[in-house]
């Protein structure tokens, strides 16, 4: 007998991995179908081609035209999205579980049998070009992208919005070729969770996807971080954006859970040190946070603060001080608070089918296996103050790249920050 909540996996002969998790006491289900591709694998002169292609596959299949396809999803109340991310294409959806057959069939049709209507390309390009224009009106997102461009190596530095020249210039034939080259099962994952029977999902996926063939793209390998200098982008806005990034533990590193806990201490809930010191005690910002992201072969912490220009100097100075203070300065209580929060969030996310389907898929992609709730709990609970010291000596939060976007430039030297 399978245990409740157990996640089962099966690999089909074409390489496609199927993950299925039954969640008791809910009526919904969610799917996530993903495979390598996206901005990281776009040709350098066609950045954004993958964005157009993912959207194009949703504009009709061999059986259904664009309108009929959209109507079919809507008729069964299936919320769905088709997109190209940084290194994966993903097709996701949430639905009332008795509609899972329809949902997976429609997704199969978009991936394996899209009609790729040429006449839709111009309007899709228009949409993504407008997204790029709109980005200019979004200072916080723009600041992060500008930082990423300067700090990460090619192709990790690429903007998830693509580039104007790439979107405008890519031809229909190149889009078709991109579909031929990248839509392949060898590294694809289909993850389904919710009110479903795993064995039935395996049968269904096998029936739908076993004729899918091909090798597809390989994800890029990370080299090393770029310049750690200070940068400024002039911009007319009420608030000054301050962002910076420094290396941290990758997903597979022994420091991974420690990095998550340290980020919890710095930026968890409303009790993180940055929030307390910058916002609660000094009222310098509305929004200040740090994030830890652990990819397969690199990890990174990004810090964000948005504040009016006259408070920017003090904001940066307090943040830098807090980052320097973490090492060797953590109380047991603080540690336990950060762990409780991570665990509580984790358990609550267990009852959401959408969150399970995505997490299972990303775990498999990163490690080739699945983490049980127990493993994660253990990983988080076992972090000690000594682990934190080890982590911080390997990834000291001072080797960073800083970027400000707004009316005036700001450097770490100007606030007495260490290099």
């Amino acid at each position, binding site marked *: 007998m399978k245990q409740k909540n157990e996640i089962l996996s099966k690999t089909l002969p074409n390489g496609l991995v199927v993950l299925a998790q039954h969640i008791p006491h809910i009526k919904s289900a969610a799917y996530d179908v993903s495979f390598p591709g996206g901005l990281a694998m776009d040709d350098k002169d066609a950045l954004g081609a993958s964005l157009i292609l993912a959207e194009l596959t949703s504009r009709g299949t061999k059986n259904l035209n664009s309108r009929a396809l959209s109507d079919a999803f809507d008729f069964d109340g299936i919320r769905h999205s088709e997109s190209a991310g940084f290194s994966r294409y993903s097709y996701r959806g949430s639905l009332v579980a008795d509609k899972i057959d329809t949902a997976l069939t429609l997704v199969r049709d978009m991936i394996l049998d899209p009609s790729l209507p040429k006449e839709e390309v111009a309007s899709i390009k228009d949409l993504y070009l*407008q997204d790029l*224009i709109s980005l200019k009106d979004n200072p916080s997102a723009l600041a992060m992208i500008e930082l990423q461009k300067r700090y990460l190596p090619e192709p990790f530095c690429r903007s998830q919005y693509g580039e104007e020249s790439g979107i405008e210039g890519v031809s229909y034939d190149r889009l078709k070729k991109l579909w031929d080259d990248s839509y392949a099962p060898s590294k694809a994952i289909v993850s389904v969770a919710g009110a479903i029977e795993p064995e039935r999902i395996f049968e269904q996926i096998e029936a739908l996807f076993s004729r899918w063939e091909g090798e597809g793209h390989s994800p890029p390998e990370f080299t090393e971080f770029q310049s750690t200098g200070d940068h400024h982008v002039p911009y007319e806005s009420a608030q000054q954006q301050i962002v910076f990034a420094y290396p941290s533990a990758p997903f597979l590193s022994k420091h991974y859970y420690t990095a998550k806990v340290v980020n919890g201490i710095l930026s968890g809930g409303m009790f993180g040190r940055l929030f307390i010191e910058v916002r609660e005690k000094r009222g310098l910002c509305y929004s200040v946070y740090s994030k830890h992201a652990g990819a397969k072969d690199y990890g990174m912490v990004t810090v964000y603060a948005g504040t009016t220009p006259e408070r920017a100097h003090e904001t940066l100075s307090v943040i830098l001080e807090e980052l320097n203070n973490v090492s060797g300065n953590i109380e047991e209580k603080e540690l336990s608070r950060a762990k409780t929060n991570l665990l509580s969030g984790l358990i609550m996310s267990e009852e959401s089918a959408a969150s399970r389907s995505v997490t299972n898929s990303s775990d498999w992609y990163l490690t080739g296996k699945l983490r049980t709730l127990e493993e994660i709990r253990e990983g988080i609970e076992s972090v000690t103050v000594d682990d934190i010291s080890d982590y911080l000596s390997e990834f000291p939060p001072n080797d960073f790249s800083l970027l400000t976007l707004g009316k005036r430039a700001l450097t770490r030297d100007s606030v007495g920050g260490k290099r």
Partner: protein
Amino acid sequence: MIDQKLVTLSNGLNVLGERNPHSKSVAMGFFVNTGARDETDEESGISHFLEHMMFKGTAKRSALDVTYDLGALGAQANAYTSEETTVYYAAVLPENFEGLFELLSDMLQPAIDQAEFDTEKNVILEEIALYQDRPSFYLFENALLRHFSGHNAGNSVLGTTESVSAITSDQMKDYLTRRYAASNITLVVSGNFEWSTLQALAEEHCGQWPSNGTQRSYSEFTPENKTETLYKKDLSQAHILLIGDGVSAKSEERYALNILTTILGDGTGSKLYWKLVDTGLAESAGFELDTRDGLGVTYAYASTTPDRSEKVSDLLEEVLQNPLDFSLSDLERAKNKICSRLVLSGELPMGRLMSLGNSWIYRKEMHSLDIEVEKYRGIELVDIETALAGTPLKSWSKFTLLPEKN
């Protein structure tokens, strides 16, 4: 399996619960029937400012204690202020429910310490600055103010830099006493908890809260439709907003109109989607109903490049001028979309919490998810026609935000 109960304490505080023993968490929220609409001009922004002060200390907890205690409980907590309601909510694992209850009810009796007040005022001013940099928010805020021309329904939630700067802690204490009466607050709990525990906690921690006969003051609103273009420096995209009549939160016609706005203006697969977004003319387009206390509005919105703003605006109006230009299968699809979303969002205690709280605050109504789904299932074309026979979609104000000309 899922059951609901309502208890009214002797001071008038309503306690609503929906228990689902299979949930992995429990969510609770205090829904206060107060917001920007209940502010005088001098108080503009005070409801939202007060919402922030609830996290800044009580008679027995400092601001840091509040924050750290929330952290120790693993609570996912937050609050929001709208034109008509202020809501404080959190979710925890069931074993931390009692701790959360004690903490959240203590927070609702804030100390409003002067030093904390002064610091937090700066945070609010930063929040106002942050939203100034978001064009669509900027347009909504300014358009509502103009559309309601002086009526309190158009009051700004954040207030302005000037109004917030001038607010004193005494004004805030006065507002708190006036508006946070037990009879003006509803406590909602959803998820995995025990009735006996809830009742005992409510009596113990909220039973002594003072009450008064506080009421919202209502005045007649007669829309005068306006057409206005606003300009913003260094803007890249154009934004268009049409504000028209809707129906109030009490109106049964809201079901029919919600279905209609889904047909005409849902994010995908709607009339506006096919006309504007699928064709690449607009970056986004939507149409929705905002049901409020005693009145309601509809918003039609689109963002596009400045050179296309007139064309997009015309097409937006064209869709609204022909609201019944849809098929029965469009109707069926919209119903299915709405019902599926209700089921999905209703699966998490937090999703049900919001739905239960708002439905009680506005309608004194307690519906199970199944009943809510049935209401939408039962809507026919004739119900939409009847709803349209009233004021919705007869006329609207039109606001456009464009880049300032150099």
